[in-house]
């Protein structure tokens, strides 16, 4: 055996042992909670926003804040002697396999007592499976695929509304628009990025379109890393829709907007989600993003009807220097709901936490969202969760629907590109 071989063998063996030892972490007094987000890869900017929402929630749980929000007025978890929550973040790289491995690592090596977050449905699918297997509660507030809560998992809970609710809300909105403006908007075009999330969104929209009697005139899946989307837009153009419903991540939202303008594709009602809500979107497309109606669960202008929103937004602004986005606000919920459960359970035992999560009944005035509250049904979906719709006007999101919470009048129809 040559010397080189022995030295190399030794080095590799030693580093493997060191790596292995790294995995054997030490338990500390803080309560660790795990969160897996896409922190690198082409969805990284959005993953970072989610992370910010979670961080702010943890600040509020651990500190003393004069807010009418669960866990705000106390420091840490009172029933556990004021123990502090610490979030251990991990990078899923947007891959289901990595998401699963990182969730396992957080649970078994970092000894987190619960998991929150995930953002991409495909990643949450495997990460939550890991948590389920290891019997660790998983509270989700930022992935929307309906399939996630339909697997009969014992430890998995979702605070935010899913895509079934979203699709129904979209068509309710279009119906409301028809009444308000006395104009038929029956021709609907579906455009969606073709992975787990986008394709499930489209499936729900197809279902609800049938229910509400709308006609799908175009049904276009696309690859979200595409360098060019001319053919997609030309297809849309020739289908002459009244309504466009678009499910993109952020990079494709930008690319489509630029191509719509370039090819002069005009649609009276332009609706979107997710990627359109990322502040990078407005920053990148500027005025071209005006008048898109985007689904959200939160908007700073709701402070008018719910002052708590304004206060939390101020805290966020102080920390990150800009308004809280719908994406960050959505991720903000899970840590609070979880902390509240841990507090009520007075224990870190997974089954104790699970039991009180099932009993959760948080009134609407104690949460950030403009919902009636948080209460889980038998598949662990929050029954009070619903969407609002915001429209981009003057480079900002303004709440336009439901009418009773709207801060601004909806602009309709979207002006043609040459009239802007």
């Amino acid at each position: 055996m040559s010397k080189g071989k022995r030295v190399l063998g030794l080095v590799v063996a030693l580093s493997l042992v060191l790596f292995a030892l790294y995995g054997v972490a030490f338990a500390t007094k803080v309560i660790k909670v795990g969160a897996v987000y896409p922190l690198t890869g082409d969805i990284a900017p959005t993953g970072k926003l989610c992370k910010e929402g979670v961080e702010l929630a943890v600040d509020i749980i651990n500190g003393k804040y004069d807010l009418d929000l669960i866990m705000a007025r106390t420091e840490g978890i009172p029933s556990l002697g004021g123990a502090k929550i610490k979030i251990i973040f991990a990078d899923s790289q947007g891959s289901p396999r990595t998401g699963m491995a990182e969730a396992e690592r957080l649970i078994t090596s970092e000894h987190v007592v619960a998991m929150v977050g995930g953002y991409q449905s495909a990643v949450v699918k495997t990460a939550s499976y890991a948590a389920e297997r290891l019997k660790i509660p998983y509270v989700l507030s930022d992935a929307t695929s309906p399939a996630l809560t339909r697997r009969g998992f014992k430890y998995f809970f979702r605070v935010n509304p899913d895509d079934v609710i979203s699709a129904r809300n979209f068509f309710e909105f279009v119906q409301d628009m028809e009444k308000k403006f006395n104009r038929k908007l029956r021709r609907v075009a579906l455009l969606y990025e073709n992975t787990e999330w986008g394709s499930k969104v489209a499936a729900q929209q197809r279902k609800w379109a049938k229910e509400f009697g709308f006609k799908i005139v175009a049904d276009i899946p696309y690859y979200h890393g595409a360098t060019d989307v001319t053919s997609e837009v030309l297809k849309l153009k020739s289908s002459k829709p009244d309504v466009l419903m678009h499910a993109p991540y952020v990079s494709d939202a930008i690319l489509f907007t630029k191509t719509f303008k370039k090819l002069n594709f005009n649609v009276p009602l332009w609706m979107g989600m997710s990627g359109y809500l990322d502040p990078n979107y407005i920053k990148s497309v500027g005025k071209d993003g005006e008048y898109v109606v985007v689904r959200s669960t939160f908007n700073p202008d709701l402070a008018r009807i719910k002052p708590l929103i304004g206060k939390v937004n101020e805290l966020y602004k102080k920390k990150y220097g800009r308004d809280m986005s719908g994406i960050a606000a959505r991720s903000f919920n899970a840590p609070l709901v979880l902390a509240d459960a841990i507090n009520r359970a007075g224990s870190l035992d997974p089954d104790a936490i699970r039991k009180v999560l099932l009993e959760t009944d948080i009134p609407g005035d104690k949460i950030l969202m403009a919902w009636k509250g948080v209460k889980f049904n038998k598949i662990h979906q929050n029954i009070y969760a619903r969407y609002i719709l915001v429209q981009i006007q003057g480079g900002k999101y303004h709440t336009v629907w439901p009418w009773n919470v709207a801060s601004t009048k909806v602009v309709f129809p979207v002006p043609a590109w040459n009239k802007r």
Partner: protein
Amino acid sequence: MEKGKHLYYVVLVVLAIVFPIVFNVPFVQHVAIMVFMYGMLAESWNVIGGYSGLFSFGQAAFFGIGAYTSTLLYMQLGLTPWIGMIAGGLVAIAAGIAIGYPCSKLKGHYFAIATIAFAWIINILFTNWSFVGAATGLSPELAPADSWYAFQFRSSKLPYYYIGLFLMLLTVYVVNKVIKSKTGFYLRALGENEEVAASLGVNIAKYRLISISIASFFTAVAGSFYAQYVLYIDPPSVLAHFLSVEIVLIAMFGGSGTIWGPIWGALILVPLSQYARAIWGGMGSGLDIMVYGFVIMVFSIFRPRGVVSFFIRK
């Protein structure tokens, strides 16, 4: 020397068997399982890329075919993934021949790009084919408890660890046997110089297909193993172009054209990427990717023939 060598192997295998019991930490075991999987993939690639001179950049297609075949057979017919694994391997051989036969005249980079194109086509077809779950992918029903029939183990990672270790060693064993046989001699002749091999009367097309079949089979078996391990497959995770590139990278980094080179590659690169991410990934700063790329770059500048070049005395 020969005796010492055997002892060396025995010690290594014993260490590998004891390792997960000593370090009974799921993440460490996960990294080890990934080492086995990538080791197996890189070793399979080694047959075509390392020995036969066919640089395939489309192995993800076969990996995906294996994953989808066993999962579909289990979901549709309730067939155990153990048989599904073999079936996946056979389907992959068929696919390998279907693409390998028309490509038999292609050389070097033209062949490489053809495999990239093939893998992308498979990816796009699967993404739009509702029978295989289209973009949503497939998730088999989860067994309520550990089950050898369903090839699902929830309570511990140890079964996956040992199955992975076994499959990797099996691949190494088979590849070693093939390469040392007469067939292997022809394969190597093909890899060194195709024209010379042809003039010596080697049936190039035939040996190319043999080589492709071996690689496709083991790659697909690894795919089935992956599907049973993660229990959720979709085109971005099992048919991605990046997976094909990773396989080539690991084999080349370790040293292709040698039996243990690809395994060394997996043993070093997989933990490097996993731990770099575990340590720095949570910040989302890109530092982990940077370190990973940098190590690969610097290392290959100094060791262009791969890690195994440490072992070859000049």
